[in-house]
Every structure is written in structure tokens, then in C-alpha cells.
């Protein structure tokens, strides 16, 4: 287990290094730069001075090496767009994204998995087809349309705030009031992120449990006198979790590195929006920092999924092929 964890840690570090370096290189190579964007119509001397100040007049290799030197000392550089340290910005936004991602993940799990078990264990009936139809719609609607639709419903009904993470009254609130305020703002972005994931989970879970319930050990457990529901939940469901947990790794990585579409539409101040703003402004170090964070979350997500898989499926722990 120890060697496995070390191997995964090494892979995560390599992934972070490659992703952040590539994003730095690609952003630098793309036409346009931060100084040019910010200084249209301004004295050219000011523009040149800004370029020199930001290191844009230096060759990429020199700029990259000094950035890498900083990274080794855990200094990810200064954001040009926000004039603040990249690590501080990412820390602030990562917490916001983590809150949203956790809510969306819980929502997707609580809706998608039970519905998947329901539709996968029904052979006939309108319920199975209804769930399947809703899931197909949930998967098919792009996040942009889904989030705009939810924002529209929130605006039309007034049930939830249409954007932001907290209200401006938050300055004088106690912790409990702040949490309640946050909870009022969460549903729209969490649903926008969670519905497509719930639909994907439902589809995957449905197929997996349908397949698992045909396994001989489920029939054997029924033959030993177990109720159908008991046989399904105790024996078929843990086995069916393998593909579902495989998807979890990707879901955790994607959700925790932020969805710029949902975060922009719902004005959620998270990592996705930060990355989007950084890319638009060609803020090199911030782009690299956001990309590295996304890679880190992806690595962590995959690791968590592997550990959950090992926990849920005794065959994996035993090293058998499923």
C-alpha cells in the first residue's frame, strides 16, 4: 500500500509539473500579452515599462526558470491581473469552489445513485423509462444552458438568489447567519453542476447494477433465502460500484478545479472563474497556478476513487481481476 501511495504521489507531482508548465508555455506563446491588453491608448513608454516590469521582455526560458525557482520555494508568483500572490488568490477561490463542489457532489450522489439502482433493478414499468428519459435530458443539456435555465427559474420565482455566494448584508452577520445566507445561494450553482453529474451517475449505476444482479452470486444469495432487496443492496450493489467509483475520480477532479461556465453565469467566485479571467487577461502565473491546482485535484480525485474502490470491492483488495 505504501509503495502504491508513493507511486501515485509521484504521478501527481509529474502531472502538476507538466500541466502547469504546458499552460505557462501555451499562454505565453498565444498572441497578445497582458501589458498590451492593459495599455491601449497609453503612452508607449508606459507599456514598455510594464512589459519589463512583468518580465515579458525576457525570453520565455529565462522567465520559466525563475518561475520554477519560485515554485520550488512554494512561491507561485504574483498575479498581474489582481496584483496579489497567486497562492493567496488560489487559496481563497479554492475554498469557494470546494464548498460548491462538495454540495454538487453530494447532490449528484444522493440523486444519481438511488435512481440508478431503482431504474437498473426494474425490468418494466413507466418509472424506469421516466428516470431514463430525465437522465438523458440531464446529460444532454450543456452546462451553460442548464445554468442559465436555473438562473432564469430563480429570477422568475424568487426562490433563490440568482447569483453570488453571499449577500451584501453579510458584513454584519454572525457565523450562523452567514452559513444560512450561503445555503440560500448554493442551490442554483450546485444544481447546475450536480444535475448532469447525477444523470451520468444514474445511467452508469443503472447499467452496472443491472449487470451485477445477473451474476451467479446474487442468484446464490437469493437461493440462500435472502429477500430480493437484501440481495441487491448487500451483494449486487457493492460490485456495481466499480464503474461508478471510476467516474468519481474524474468528477472530483473536475468539480474541485472549478467549472468556469457555471461560476461565470452564477457569479460564484471560484477557481473556474479565476482561471477564465486569468486566461482572458494572459495572466501567466495565475494561469499556471490554476492549472496546477486543477491537476492536483484530478490526482487527488483519482486516488480517492481508487481507495474507495478498494474499500468497496473485496476482489480489488485481493488483487483479483473483476
Amino acid at each position, binding site marked *: 500500500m505504501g509503495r502504491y501511495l508513493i507511486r501515485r504521489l509521484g504521478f501527481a507531482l509529474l502531472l502538476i509539473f507538466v500541466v502547469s508548465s504546458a499552460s505557462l508555455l501555451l499562454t505565453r506563446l498565444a498572441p497578445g500579452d497582458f501589458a498590451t491588453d492593459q495599455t491601449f491608448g497609453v503612452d508607449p513608454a508606459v507599456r514598455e515599462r510594464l512589459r519589463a516590469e512583468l518580465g515579458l521582455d525576457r525570453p520565455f526560458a529565462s522567465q520559466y526558470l525563475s518561475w520554477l525557482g519560485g515554485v520550488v520555494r512554494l512561491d507561485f508568483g504574483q498575479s498581474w491581473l489582481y496584483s496579489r500572490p497567486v497562492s493567496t488568490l488560489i487559496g481563497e477561490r479554492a475554498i469557494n469552489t470546494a464548498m460548491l463542489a462538495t454540495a454538487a457532489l453530494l447532490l449528484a450522489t444522493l440523486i444519481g445513485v438511488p435512481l440508478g439502482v431503482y431504474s437498473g433493478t426494474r425490468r418494466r414499468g413507466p418509472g424506469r423509462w421516466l428516470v431514463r428519459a430525465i437522465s438523458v435530458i440531464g446529460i444532454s443539456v450543456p452546462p451553460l444552458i442548464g445554468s442559465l435555465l436555473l438562473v432564469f427559474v430563480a429570477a422568475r*420565482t424568487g426562490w433563490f438568489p440568482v*447569483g453570488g455566494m453571499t449577500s*451584501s448584508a453579510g458584513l454584519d452577520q454572525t457565523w450562523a447567519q452567514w452559513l444560512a445566507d450561503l445555503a440560500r445561494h448554493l442551490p442554483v450553482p450546485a444544481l447546475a453542476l450536480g444535475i448532469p453529474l447525477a444523470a451520468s451517475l444514474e445511467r452508469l449505476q443503472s447499467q452496472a447494477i443491472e449487470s451485477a444482479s445477473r451474476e451467479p452470486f446474487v442468484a446464490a444469495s437469493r437461493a440462500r433465502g435472502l429477500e430480493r432487496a437484501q440481495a441487491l443492496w448487500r451483494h449486487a450493489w457493492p460490485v456495481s460500484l466499480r464503474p461508478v467509483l471510476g467516474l468519481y475520480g474524474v468528477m472530483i477532479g473536475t468539480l474541485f478545479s472549478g467549472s468556469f461556465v457555471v461560476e461565470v453565469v452564477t457569479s460564484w467566485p471560484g477557481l473556474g472563474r479565476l482561471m477564465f479571467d486569468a486566461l482572458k487577461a494572459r495572466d501567466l502565473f495565475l494561469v499556471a497556478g490554476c492549472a496546477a491546482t486543477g491537476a492536483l485535484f484530478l490526482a487527488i480525485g483519482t486516488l480517492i476513487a481508487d481507495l474507495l474502490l478498494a474499500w468497496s470491492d473485496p476482489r480489488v483488495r485481493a488483487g483479483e481481476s473483476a
Partner: protein
Amino acid sequence: MNRQSRALLSLLLIGVIVAVGWRSCADQEESAGEIVVSDVSTRGGTLTTSLRSEPRTFNRLVDANFPVDLFSILTGAKLIRVNRATRAIEAGLAERWTASPDNLTHTLTLRDGVQWSDGAPFSAADVVFTFQAAYDLKSQTVLASALRVNGQPLKVTAPDARTVVVTFPATFGPGIAILDHLPILPKHKLQAALDAGTFRQAMGVTTPPSELAVLGPFMLRSYLPGQRFVFDRNPRYWKKDAAGIQLPYADQVVLEIVPDQNAELVRLQAGQIDLQQQQIRPEDIATLKPAIDQGRVRLVEIGVADNPDLLFFNLRTPYWQKDPRREWILTKEFRKAISHAVDREAYANTVYLGAGVPIWGPITPGNKEWFSPNVQRYGHSLDRAREILGQLGLTNRDADEWLEDKNNAEARFTVLTYRGNSSLDRGSAVLRDALKAVGVAVDVVPLEQGTVIQRMFKGDFEAIMFFFSPTSLDPSMNPDFWLSSGSAHIWNIGQEKPATAWEKEIDDLILQMTAQADPAERKRLFDQVQGIFADNLPAIYFVAPRLQMAVSNRVGGLEPAISRPQLLWNVEKITVQGQAAR
């Protein structure tokens, strides 16, 4: 009842609950339509507005972008102010001023008893310090060039605590309106940074609000990155209205950071913001119609925009040296043919859904003071366009639909434009279709804004269609656009000496009008500039949109102006009634 029937019944019940909920919300909205708000000036309330992006700094001297400018308008004060609605010069921190007979020396008397928000007294020393900072070589401020006349800095002295003497190196047409650029900064807070050479880093966005001493109507209370700014009224603000009520009227201003224009619109509909920072897109008016009909939102007419879309060619001759098209693409006749080919009425209808006026130059009717209606106009005529193209040797020499020149080079050019801008998307499509009708092919290439600007600076383009905002409505304060040496002389930036006779002529006239104090003479000279511009068409203008802004009916006391921020420039007099939705 079996399990499936129960499930179906449950679904039906959920549907009924949703429908009832929806209906009751619709009822609430209808009753909201009965709210009647007057424009009576009243104290109190919170004005909530939106901001697309965040400032990099709170220091207006080192950054010219809109968020910093808005921050400066909310929290800062100037010696004098140009009223953006009337264009008149108004007293600010200086309550009165006199000019010497030669208009070179202006003596300003500062208001008595003005205090910074932290209680420190404001004096002439703060004014002198601000000029020092603006001209400081180490700080390289963005205002340094705007505060120069003929390339020379103004000389500023303070004979006593309430008197400031500003001496111009030469007669300057706009006079003390130049001081409208400069928000006064607190010497007691920033002198140390200037001495240490760290002025550029001073007033960064992480500065605690308590450290930001201001003279403006509002002071920063909190900044939540990515979320919002909250400003409280400055209890020490020095301005009062005609009835003697201390300004500002509103107790608080909240700037919600909403990066997406669609999301901003939805928030306005939901009553969560009171006004947007940008004009409403024509296509969004239908979306807002229910809220307008219910009396929750109204549209405010701003006027004709001063930053219309424009098309210009790269007029740097070296770029075209090896190109066979150089013989006709660089000529003013070719540009005139384009101007004739485009139907401006159709352009206004397609691009701005009818809310636009045809224009023939960079100064639009929105700039009432400087607009000249008498410049040469190129009416819509495909026949005239074809005739001009024929005179340039462009005829159809093969079986396709495009014209060719005598070297068989096709009449075709590439237009770079900003990606994702709806008016430019539609405008470039109108241009492409209009020129197709006369046999000229246009390849439109939408790119990121930064890429277009970089290629423009490098001179690596054939033609560009975009828009940009002038820094001032007075042409003398926009020399970078008009002068051939200017950094915003977009068709041929930063020329060492004028490349053409007409550019030399414009240079001379702009310098003359800048050195002229008589307003009538300045206008006469600038009318000549507009005439030369219209004759040579270095940039082709088609339509200027009529601007409208959507505002909550809670808001009163607005004085719309065409320059940004169109409504908040006079934030101290804006009133708000009732509560915004949370």
C-alpha cells in the same frame, strides 16, 4: 394502489406544487408593479450596481482601466470637475479660480475646512504632492502624459495652504479642464511610498480600507475578491446640495462583481441590482419588457455613443510593399467605395435593431460640442461604389463573383475583429454582405481582444473592425488619436513624421486648436480637421448606437452622460428608495 401508481401520483402532486408556487410568484411580481417611486431627493438607502471585472489597484494614477476609474469616482475628489452631462466646468475641491490675461497661470482657491475621511486636514500640500506623484519618473504613472502640455509638465506651487497656482508651459485650449483628470491623493498616507520609490505598489487592492483616506462621497468598507465592494458614505464629504443637505444622498453603494452580461441582466430583472455599468444591448430590451411593464425597471436614454464601431486599413506602406493589391487597397478612393457600398440605415437596423444613427466620422452627434454635421457624406449607392472600383482598375475578369485588378489579384481583404462582441459580429457580417454586392470579398477573422490590439500595435493586419473609447470628448485631450505621432493613431501608429500631407495638415490644425483659448476658433479649426478626415477616410464609420441603460425604479437623481460611467459619474446625487432584493 400499487407502487407505480403512487409514484405517478407523487409526480403529479409535485407538478401541482411547482405550478402553484410559480403562480404565486407571478402574483407577487404583478403586485410589485404598483410601486411608485418619485425622484424626490432623499437621504439613505443602498444603491447596488454591478462591475464586470475587478481593479488591479485602487491607485488611479497608475492604472487607467474602468474599474479603477470607477473606484476613483466613488471615493475620490478633484480640484475641478467637468460636468459630464453639460460639459461645464464645476468647482470641486477648488471653490474658485482666476486666470492670468495670457491664460498661462491659473490660481485656485481651495475650500476651507475640507478633511480627509480619516480626519486629517486637506490642504494645498496634498495637491502639490499629487502632481509630484503623477510626474514621478520612477512611478511612471498613466496620467503623466495626459497632464502634459506640448510634452511639458504643468508647474504647480502652493503659496499657502488654501492656494494652488498652476502654470501652463504654453496656452492650452481646454484650460483647467485638464485638472479633471486628476484625483487628489493624501500626502500624509503616500509621501513615504513616493520617497521610497514604491508609489506604484501603494494603494494596492489588499490595502485595509482603514488605510485608504479619501475625499470623495464614499469610502471603502469592504472588498471581497470575486464578490463585491461595499462603500459607506463618507461622513466628512465636503459637498452639499442646493438645500444645504450634505451629500451623498445614498448611505451605501454596493458593487457586485458579475462577470457575465446575461447574468447581470437577470439580476437586474430579479431586483438584485439597481443598474448596470454598461448600456443595454438592443436585443435585451425585449427580455426586460415584462419588468418595464410592471414598473420595476425603466430605460434611461443616454444619447448617441461616442465610441462607435469603425473599420480601418493598415496604412503603413512597408506592410504592403510586396503585395500586388497595394496599388488600390491603400487609396482613399477604395475606402470611399466601401463607404458608399454600406447602407447605414440597414446597418442600424441589423446591428442595433434600429437604435442607431448614421455617421461619417469619429465625432458622433453624442459629442454635441465638437460634432460637425457638415462633413462629406457617402450616401448608399452600389452604382457609385462600382464606378469608383472600376476607376481603380477593379473589374470582373473571370467567371466568379469577385473583382480582380490588372495583375489578376482578387479584390479581397481580411478584417480582424473582436470575438464574441454581438455588435461587431453583426456589423462585420453587414460589411461582408455589402461589399459582396459590389464584388469585393471580405474575410472576417474574429480574435481575442488582446490579440487584435497586439497585431494593431505591430502593424500586422490588413484591416481591423473594432471600437474604442476616447479618453475625453475634447479632441485636444485625445492627441494620441489625432496626431500622426500618437499611440492611438490606429491606422499608422507612432509616425516619426507625418506619412501623408493630409496627416501633416491635421497635425498642424490639432496643435493650433490646442494652443488656442478661444472656444469658437477652436471649434472652427476642429471642423476643418473633421473635413479632412472625412475626405481621406483613414477610418470608416457607419453607425453610432443610441445608448440606453436599464435602471431600477428605486433609483432617482440620475444625470445621464455618454462617457463612462454614464450614470455613476454623479453618484453623490443618486437617490434610492426601498430595499433591493437579496
